[in-house]
């Protein structure tokens, strides 16, 4: 249920502005890959190119190749919709559907795939909420609005919603930046668990978080404001944080800029 992503020579644009340039990397299955770097360096943009959410923004486009176990996600006959069903996403701010109950939020993606029996739906919702470490907290109020949960619970609800459709990859765009430390810890524990089944990619501004949870880390940077972002280096997380091979990485990690 977990696939490898291979990116080669990827450029992403907003209109005529080039946001990232010539990114190539391999993201291994059943592992957590973290993207770090200063604001505006294009790491979130790059994350969104991995499930074709980048092109949702008017004028945005991508050049280059993204292969999911060898299949080009930007191939001529590939529908963005089917890409997004394989590669799930969790956003910076928890975004459960405000008009839906907890149950319906988790079931939302499943219902897109056509008719599904009530009992199978029940099972998958329970399984997904358990998978997101949320079941015990909400099992007695599944019909209550998802918006009534706390921020950390909402984010776990969003993770349950994303894994309910059994994606190959889970992309997380600063999933803890709107959460308190306790909720952050809950999400990090969850990531460690989800890693057994999914390829996980996380964008984070929190260096300790990257060091704690990820197996590999990529450092993004841009030469100056207005220039496109690039990958400066990518390596095992332990090596990146102890013995980086670029001066800029070391400066960023030790807090000398960014």
């Amino acid at each position, binding site marked *: 249920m977990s696939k490898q992503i291979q990116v080669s020579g990827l450029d992403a644009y907003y209109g005529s502005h080039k946001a990232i340039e010539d990114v190539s990397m391999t993201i291994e299955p059943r592992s957590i890959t973290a993207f770090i770097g200063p604001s505006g360096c294009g790491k979130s943009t790059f994350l969104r190119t991995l499930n074709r959410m980048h092109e949702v923004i008017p004028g945005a486009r991508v050049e280059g190749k993204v292969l999911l176990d060898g299949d080009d996600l930007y191939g001529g006959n590939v529908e963005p919709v089917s890409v*997004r069903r394989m590669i799930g996403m969790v956003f910076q701010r928890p975004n459960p559907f405000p*008009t839906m109950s907890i149950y319906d939020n988790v079931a939302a993606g499943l219902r897109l795939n056509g008719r599904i029996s009530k009992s199978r739906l029940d099972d998958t919702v329970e399984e997904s909420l358990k998978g997101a470490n949320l079941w015990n907290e909400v099992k007695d109020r599944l019909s209550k609005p998802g918006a009534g949960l706390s921020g950390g619970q909402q984010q776990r609800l969003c993770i349950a919603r994303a894994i309910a459709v059994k994606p190959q990859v889970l992309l997380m765009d600063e999933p803890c930046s709107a959460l308190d430390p306790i909720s952050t810890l809950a999400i990090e524990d969850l990531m460690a668990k989800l890693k057994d089944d999914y390829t996980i990619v996380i964008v984070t501004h929190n260096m300790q978080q990257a060091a704690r949870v990820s197996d590999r880390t990529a450092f993004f940077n841009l030469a100056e404001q207005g220039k496109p972002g690039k990958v400066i280096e990518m390596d095992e997380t332990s090596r990146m944080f102890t013995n980086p091979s670029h001066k800029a990485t070391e400066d960023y990690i030790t807090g000398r800029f960014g």
Partner: protein
Amino acid sequence: MTIKTEIREGGPATSRSASRRSHGEAPFRFLSTGAGVLLLGIMAAIAVFLIGEAIPALRADKGNFLTELTWDPNSSQVFGIGALAFGTVLSSALALVIAMPIAVGVALFISHYAPRRLAGPLGYLIDLLAAVPSVIYGLWGVAFLVPLLREPSQWLNDTFGWFPLFAGEGAIGGKTMLAGGIVLAIMILPIIAAISREVFLQVPKMNEEAALALGATRWEMIRMAVLPFGRPGVISAAMLGLGRAMGETIAVALIFPATFGISFQILTPQGNSIAANIANGFGEAGDIGRGALIASGLVLFIITLLVNMAARMIINRRKELMKADT
């Protein structure tokens, strides 16, 4: 007001900025309070005038004002609001049924489908529909729509005559409820479309992206995120449109043949409304007749008030929902 003054005197009014602020405060408060009181005064004067004019006529009524169908205050003095209120509600409901799908479709197209170059002018065009004087709509309805509808009405009657709305023997087509309903629908379309568009544009981007990231197509995203979020706004837009349709006067006065009866047959030449009846009858009405028309106006006022209150309630409930979100 006294309480406010006390608070200010009791508070730390020593700082310079506070004294400067209170300097412009008194005249402004006087002006705004005055405007509010004046408005209330005008409202009260209108109400007193209407009720005062209506009561003598209602006393003189030899029928039951609420249920009587005929309207003959000038000679036999038997008159009632029944047929007129029915015509008002039926024609407006018909207009709403016709206008809603089109208005919501247009609003969705402008907010979520149309390229930006097209969305702007299209929205402007819809707003422009609201600027056409209602008498023009009435003339257009009589001169163009009524003849145009004759054959489709006949076909509807032949094919779906078993359905009560499309039933009817004898004359089919002409100055019908359907024609009035369509003209009213076009007239209320702009306001419903404009409000719906605003509501759809307010749907948080993050909710739309949540749906898209699950692999929803654009239409599925609209069903998952946009329509549920916008529903209360669209309902209140519909209520506002309904209120307008019920109050519309000259267009329906031109189209409706001013019959007095209760019939659901929208394809036969019949129809009337409170507003149209006032426009038609005010000129040659005597004292009792005038009072009777004013009384009918009061009923129309109450109906539209109820519709607007319902809309207000829905909007308020939505506000509470939004509070729960944050």
